[in-house]
């Protein structure tokens, strides 16, 4: 994910402004083009944006609602700070995991990657996806690390479930299946980490600029 207008340093200014003419190499836009670019015109047509234009009454109603939200700022500061704290805490768990896992080769890396997601998901109170739980349990068992999980920021319930599942899988000889899936597991972990990390960073920037976002919303209203 990338930072957009709300997350930018200057509110209301996207990281990359639209150029004046068609992009190099793009098909020439037809006369009457809305955006100056055929692909973008098609996108807006697909999204039926033209049909979404609001009546004056609709704009007034929406503006009033957004203004009311923008005005209620101060009382929400503490809650937003709490969310920031939770995200930062999750990041600390992640770096702890990473340091630990560096010492244990690829299995550790997979665990570390999944652990990063688990830390965020657990902090956020979300349920751990079944696929991740299995990967976590099997990976931990293969590395002989199940007993170490508890020291690494994972909740007791998750840890118990992981241990249980890992033991059961070991008994049933499923660990060889896990090892056969090593490459897929590693790719999955890497993809998860890159996406999850990017989104978390985006969220942090957005939250950090919450005032800017509200100001943008308010300025749209004031422009009316």
């Amino acid at each position, binding site marked *: 994910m990338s930072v957009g207008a709300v997350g930018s340093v200057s509110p209301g200014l*996207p990281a990359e402004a639209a150029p004046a003419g068609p992009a190099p190499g793009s098909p020439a836009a037809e006369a009457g083009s809305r955006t100056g670019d055929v692909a973008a015109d*098609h996108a807006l047509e697909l999204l039926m944006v033209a049909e979404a234009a*609001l009546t004056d009454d609709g704009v007034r109603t929406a503006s009033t609602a957004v203004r009311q939200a923008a005005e209620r700022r101060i009382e929400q500061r503490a809650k937003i700070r709490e969310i920031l704290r939770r995200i930062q805490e999750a990041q600390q768990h992640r770096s702890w995991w990473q340091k630990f896992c560096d010492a244990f080769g690829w299995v550790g890396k997979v665990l570390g990657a999944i652990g990063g997601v688990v830390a965020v998901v657990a902090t956020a109170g979300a349920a751990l996806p079944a696929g991740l739980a299995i990967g976590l349990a099997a990976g931990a068992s293969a590395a002989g690390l199940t007993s170490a999980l508890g020291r690494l920021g994972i909740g007791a319930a998750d840890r118990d479930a992981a241990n249980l599942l890992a033991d059961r899988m070991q008994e049933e000889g499923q660990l060889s299946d896990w090892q056969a899936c090593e490459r897929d597991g590693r790719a999955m972990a890497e993809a998860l980490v890159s996406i999850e990390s990017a989104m978390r960073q985006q969220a942090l920037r957005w939250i950090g600029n919450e005032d800017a976002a509200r100001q943008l919303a308010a300025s749209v209203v004031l422009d009316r």
Partner: protein
Amino acid sequence: MMGKTEETGVRTAISALTQLGLAEAAGWTPAERAALLRLGRDGLARGDWMTACGLLEYAALLDPDRAETWELVAGARMAARRWAEALAAVEVAWALGRTWRRATLAALCCARLGDAAAAERWRKAARDRAPDDEEEYRRMERALEDQEVPS
């Protein structure tokens, strides 16, 4: 085109963001969030891409599991010629639900980014999910054919 792995990652991340409850913490009611989205759409309809991007991205943050908002974010970024970022937004929408419209938007982005192979895969994905509605079908084909390289 997104792999299954990446889709899982996106859904996991969206789920974590949703669980943070940012909208509630920031004090936005559902009606106010809907109003924010409407103003974003209105910005798009008026051709004010920058404002539309800002409002819609904020709306996506407040309701990260709403695929339709990510579609609109993609549309606003495409209008602003931010193709790679538009593709990222479409991919989030796709991970949340596969539709012909999202596949078509992704095909348009990939074509603009010069990734012909990915564009072709997205085109196929769109046609595999072609809409029943005649008018919508025509819109999809117009968009896909404009980007297609003649063989």
